[in-house]
């Protein structure tokens, strides 16, 4: 393996894990909820999760979105409801990909053959 500077390695690790403070400092955009966002925190978290699903985000990002939605008071029904709601907009392939990530983030074992 090629030697990679510790700082670079650390940054890549933090980005791959969707570390909130690192992402915030890089984007210069608030990732956490501002007070005057126009949406209540729960709806805001669900809308953001819809964006993550539509972008076919990594498991780490979708996991972050699901955790934030739970923290904002969303229920399992609502989180799966996001997946159902965006289906016609994003298409089957993205819904299918996100279903795996959502299940993992919801600590739900789908018990699929070949799935470790």
């Amino acid at each position, binding site marked *: 393996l090629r030697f990679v500077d510790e700082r670079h390695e650390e940054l890549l690790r933090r980005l791959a894990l969707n570390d909130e403070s690192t*992402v*915030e400092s890089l*984007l*210069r*955009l*608030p*990732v956490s909820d*501002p007070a005057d*966002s*126009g*949406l209540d925190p729960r*709806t*805001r*978290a*669900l*809308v*953001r*999760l*819809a*964006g*993550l*699903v*539509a*972008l076919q*985000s990594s498991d780490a*990002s979708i996991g972050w*979105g699901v955790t934030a939605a739970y923290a904002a008071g969303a229920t*399992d*029904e*609502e989180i*799966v*409801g*996001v997946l*159902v*709601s*965006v*289906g*016609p*907009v*994003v298409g089957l392939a993205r819904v299918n990909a996100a279903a795996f990530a959502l299940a993992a983030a919801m600590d739900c074992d789908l018990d699929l053959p070949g799935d470790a």
Partner: protein
Amino acid sequence: MNPSAGRAFHPLRTMPIGSSASSMSKVNGRVSSGDLSRRPATCDAELLRLATTDGGGIDPELPDRPHVWSVPQLDAKTRALVRLGALVATRTRTPTYARHVADARAAGATDDEVLGVLGAVASVVGLAHLVAATVGVARGLGYDIDAAFERSSDDCVLGSV
């Protein structure tokens, strides 16, 4: 295939609603609609409808069929806002927003909440998607953004963040 004018066409069902497979020829076991180069005039209208609205005949709701389990649903307003967030992320064409913004307002969403969608997905989709979506959402809200651009061109430094 020569569907009569005005007949509903559902892209997902591959044939005009109301037509039957018996009106088509079968080639090698496959249903063929005949010479594809002879595109019916209704196709042009359908393409225009698909390009200018939100898919026209594509029902944004789930297919109305009985399920053996209950499908989790969001309330109408949240569903409309969630879909709008997904649209921003897909970087759809500007005219598509109009219908979804209208859906959200019809479901009781305020202008603040519709704009709140942009803020909610901003960090996720990034600046490029956000700026592209803003024009569509603004037009969907009935805001004359072109006029605003003209007004602001003199006293606004575009590109500054």
